[in-house]
C-alpha cells in the first residue's frame, strides 16, 4: 500500500474515534498529483504541477445523513482537526434535516485494493522527448501525467484503494495555416512513455496531413454512406451516456432510450454494449461503498437489457445497487466489435465519408434519440475506396435507431480503447472501448 493510502486510512481510523452513539461514518477520498503541459505549435503555452486531495465525510445517524467535502493539506494533525471540526458541524446540522427515505450504503464490508507501479519518468524529460518528436509540425495538445488516487473507508471496517500512474498525451497536428480547422488527431495514453511510439503515430499522421492539404470536397446536406472511426464512435457513445442507462432516468422517463427500453424500437443485432467494472482504468467502488460487478450488459443484440443502479436508486426503486455513481453515468463502456476487417473498410465504404472524429454532440429530439453534431479532425471524402479529399466541416442530425439500427452495415473487427483526456476537477479515468461503424446512410444537415 502506498504512503498516501496509509495516510488516508490512518486519518479515517482517527476520525472514527470521534464517532458517537449509533453514528456511521463514510469517507471518500480522491486526489491527483499531476503535471500538465499545454502545447501550441510544438511549444509550451502553460506548464505546471498540481497536487490536490479531497475527502467527503458522510455522517449517518439512523435514517438521517449529511455530507461535506474538504480539501486536505496531508498534514495529519491539521487534516484531523479539520475533519473532526467538520464532523461537529455536521452533527449540529443533522437534526434540522428530515429522515432520508432513500438512504442506502453498503453495510457488508467489501474491501479492495488496486495499486499500480509508478513507471512514469520525470515530466520535464518526457516533455523534451515530445517536443523533439513533434518538431517541424504545428503540434497542439495537452500532456498530463502523474498519479490519480481514489479511496473509500467506513466505520464498519470497509477499505478500498485505487492508485494509478498514467499519462495522456492528447494531440493534434494541423495541416496548414491557410486551413485552421484541418488536422489529424491522435492520443497516446499509457503508464510508460516511449518516444518511438509517438514518432510512429506522428509519421502516420503526416500521411493524413498530405491529404488535408488538397482542395476540400464540399457536399450538400443529404444522406451519405459513412464510416465512423472509433474516436467518432466514442463521441457518439459519450453523448449516449448522458441519462441513457441509469435506473432513475428510466423510471422517471428521462432516458433518450425510452423507445428502446419499451421495445418499440431496436438497434441492429450487432450492437452489444457493456459497462465494465474490472480490468479498467476506473476504481471498482462507489462513494457508498458498493463494488462494481465485472460487467453489466446494457444492450445485447440490439435490445435493451439492464441499468446502472446507484445506491439511492436501488433504495428508491427496490433493485440491487451495482456500484454506479450518483449520476448513473458509465465509466468504462465497451461496445463489442464486429467482423469488418480493418483492411476492407475503405473498399466497403466505396463512396462516401470517412469520419475520423465527431464533435459537440447533443440530442436534438430525445424521444427519437436523434443526435446532432459536427464532423471534425481527419474527415475525408472517399471515392472508389480511396481517401481523395478533406471534407468541409458538416453537421449531422440523425437518430441512433437509424444510425446503429437499420443503417448499420457492419462494425469493425477491432475495438480501440479510448482514454478520456478531460480533466474537469481532476484527470478523468473514464474509458470507452469501441470499434468503428460502417453506415449505409448518415444524415448531413448543414
Amino acid at each position: 500500500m502506498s504512503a498516501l493510502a496509509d495516510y488516508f486510512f490512518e486519518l479515517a481510523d482517527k476520525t472514527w474515534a470521534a464517532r458517537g452513539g449509533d453514528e456511521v461514518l463514510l469517507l471518500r477520498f480522491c486526489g491527483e498529483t499531476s503535471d500538465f503541459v499545454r502545447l501550441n505549435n510544438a511549444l509550451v503555452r502553460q506548464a505546471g504541477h498540481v497536487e490536490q486531495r479531497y475527502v467527503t465525510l458522510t455522517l449517518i445517524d439512523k435514517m438521517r445523513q449529511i455530507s461535506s467535502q474538504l480539501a486536505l493539506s496531508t498534514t495529519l494533525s491539521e487534516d484531523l482537526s479539520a475533519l473532526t471540526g467538520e464532523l461537529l458541524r455536521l452533527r449540529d446540522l443533522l437534526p434540522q434535516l428530515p429522515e432520508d427515505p432513500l438512504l442506502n450504503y453498503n453495510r457488508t464490508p467489501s474491501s479492495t485494493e488496486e495499486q499500480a507501479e509508478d513507471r512514469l519518468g520525470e515530466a520535464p524529460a518526457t516533455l523534451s522527448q515530445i517536443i523533439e518528436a513533434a518538431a517541424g509540425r504545428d503540434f497542439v495538445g495537452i500532456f498530463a501525467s502523474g498519479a490519480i488516487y481514489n479511496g473509500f473507508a467506513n466505520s464498519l471496517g470497509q477499505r478500498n484503494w485505487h492508485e494509478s500512474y498514467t499519462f495522456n498525451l492528447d494531440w493534434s497536428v494541423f495541416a496548414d495555416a491557410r486551413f485552421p480547422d484541418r488536422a489529424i488527431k491522435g492520443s497516446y495514453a499509457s503508464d510508460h512513455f516511449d518516444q518511438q511510439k509517438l514518432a510512429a503515430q506522428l509519421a502516420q499522421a503526416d500521411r493524413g496531413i498530405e491529404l488535408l492539404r488538397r482542395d476540400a470536397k464540399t457536399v450538400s446536406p443529404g444522406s451519405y454512406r459513412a464510416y465512423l472511426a472509433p474516436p467518432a464512435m466514442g463521441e457518439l457513445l459519450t453523448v449516449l451516456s448522458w441519462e441513457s442507462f441509469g435506473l432513475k432516468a428510466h423510471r422517471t422517463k428521462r432516458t433518450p432510450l425510452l423507445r428502446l427500453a419499451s421495445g418499440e424500437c431496436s438497434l441492429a443485432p450487432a450492437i452489444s454494449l457493456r459497462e465494465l467494472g474490472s480490468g479498467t482504468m476506473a476504481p471498482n467502488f462507489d462513494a457508498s461503498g458498493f463494488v462494481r460487478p465485472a460487467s453489466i450488459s446494457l444492450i445485447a443484440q440490439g435490445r435493451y437489457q439492464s441499468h446502472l443502479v446507484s445506491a439511492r436508486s436501488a433504495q428508491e426503486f427496490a433493485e440491487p445497487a451495482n456500484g454506479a455513481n450518483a449520476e448513473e453515468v458509465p465509466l468504462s463502456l465497451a461496445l463489442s466489435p464486429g467482423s469488418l476487417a480493418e483492411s476492407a473498410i475503405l473498399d466497403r465504404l466505396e463512396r462516401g465519408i470517412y469520419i475520423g472524429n465527431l464533435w459537440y454532440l447533443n440530442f436534438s429530439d430525445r424521444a427519437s434519440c436523434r443526435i446532432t453534431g459536427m464532423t471534425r479532425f481527419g474527415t475525408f471524402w472517399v471515392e472508389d475506396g480511396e481517401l481523395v479529399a478533406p471534407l468541409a466541416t458538416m453537421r449531422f442530425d440523425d437518430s441512433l435507431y437509424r444510425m446503429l439500427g437499420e443503417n448499420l452495415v457492419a462494425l469493425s473487427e477491432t475495438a480501440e480503447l479510448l482514454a478520456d483526456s478531460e480533466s474537469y476537477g481532476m484527470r478523468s479515468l473514464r474509458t470507452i472501448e469501441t470499434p468503428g461503424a460502417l453506415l449505409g446512410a448518415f444524415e448531413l444537415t448543414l
Partner: protein
Amino acid sequence: MESFRSAFSQLALGDVDFCSLRAVSSTEQQLSVRQNNVEPLKLAVDHGAMLTVIVGSGCGYAATADLSPSGLKQAFQRARAWAEATRDLCVVDHRLVDYPAATANCEISSGTGIPSTAELLEMLRETSSAIAIDPRIVDWQATLGICHERRELYTSNGGALEQRFCYLTPNIIAVANHDNETQIRSLNGGTACIQGGAKQLEAIGMISRAPEIGRQAIELLLAPQCPTGRRDLLLMPDQLALQIHESIGHPLELDRILGDERNYAGTSFVRPEMFGSYRYGSELLDVTFDPKLEGEFACYAYDDEGLTAKRSYLIRAGQLERGIGGLISQARLGAPGVACARSNGWARPAIDRIANINIEPKDASLDQLIARTEQGVLMRSNCSWSIDDSRNKFQFGCEWGQLIENGQLTTVVKNPNYRGISATFWRSLIGVGDQRTFEVMGSPYCGKGEPSQVIRVGHAAPACLFADVDIFGGDQ
C-alpha cells in the same frame, strides 16, 4: 488577507523575474428537494493556492492545498522548476508581459441576509410541492446552490488583491411523461444564476414560478411538433444567453484565435485582422463585456492576473471592435482585449474566459416585436446546444416554443430547434427589445481548457428578433 500576504512575503524568491500567489477559498452548500423529499445536504470547504513563477522567458505554476510555509515553499520550488524547464520553449516570452500591481480589497457580492439552511429547505419544499400540478408530472425537483468565495492575488511587483463573492445557482425541473413521450421544463433552462444575497434570491421567485413550470411541462406534452421551414425567430433572454455564449463569446476569445484551444475546444472563424473592420451583425447589435452589471454571475473587479475589469464594447452597431483575451493574449496578438484571464479555482491556471457578455437593449417592446412578425416562432430556455469547432455552424434547441402568426402569439409547440451560421446569423437581427424585456442570466458550466475547467459566466439580453431562420421540430 494578512495570512497569505505574510506567507508570500516570507517566500525566498531569489532571482526569479516574477512570482505570484493566487489563493482561492470557498464554502458551498447544495440543497435539493426532489418529489417533496429533502435530498441529503451536501457541503464543501475548499482552499488552496497556485504559485506562478517566471524565470527568463519561461513560466511555470504549482498548485497545492498545503498552505503551511513549507507547503507554499515546495510549491514555489516546483513552479520555479517548470519555469526553468520551459525557458526558450514557450509560445510567448513571459518577460514581455507587464503584470499590473493592483491593490484593493473589495466585496463584489455579499450574500447578505441569506436565510438559514432550515429556512431554505422549507422554501425549496414549498417550491417542490407547487410543481406537480398533474399526475403526468413523473419527476420534479427544486435545487439551490450557494457558494461564498474569496480570491486573493499577491505579486512580487507589489500587487495585493482580495475579492469576495456570493454565487446563487437555483433551478426547478418538471418532467412530464405520457407513453414514450417526455417533456422537461425548467427554470430558464438552468440559467437563473446570479450573484447576491437574500434580495436577489427573493427576486427569482422560485415558489411563485413553480406552478407555471409544471403547467408548461404538461402543455408541451400535449403540443404539436414545432413546424419545419424558414420563419422569423424571436429569442427570449434565457435562450439568447446560450446564443451569445456560443456564437459571440467563444469566437471572440483571443486564445482560440491564437490556436491554444485547437486540440480541444476549437478555433474561431474570427481572424485577427477582423478587429476594427468586420461586420459581425446588423446595426442593431451592441455587445458589451460588462463586469459591473449588478447581480450578473461573472461580476468582478479584477481578473486572476490583476488586470482591472472595465466595461468595453466588443461589437458596436454591428461592427467588431475587440476580442475577449487577457494580458498574455493581448501581448501575443498585439490586439485589444479585456480583463478576462480567469481560473475556476486554485488548482487550474488562468486562461481567457468569457465573463459577462451582454446585448444592450434598444427601444422595441415585446408586443411590438411580436406584432411585426407575420410568421415566426418564439423560443425560450435552452435544452440542446451544438456548434462547430470554428464556432460557426450551430444548432440549438429550446424547451419552449410558441408560434407567432400574423402578429399574434398562438400555438405552443414542442421540440423547437433552429440552425444557422454565426458569421451571418447576427446580420439577420431585425429587432431588439427594450429595457423591460432585458433579463440577466448566467451559467456555472462553461467548459474549456487543457487541463479542463468549468467556469461561471453571465449573459444579459433583451428579447431579439431574427429574420428568416431555418427552424424545425422533432420527428413525428
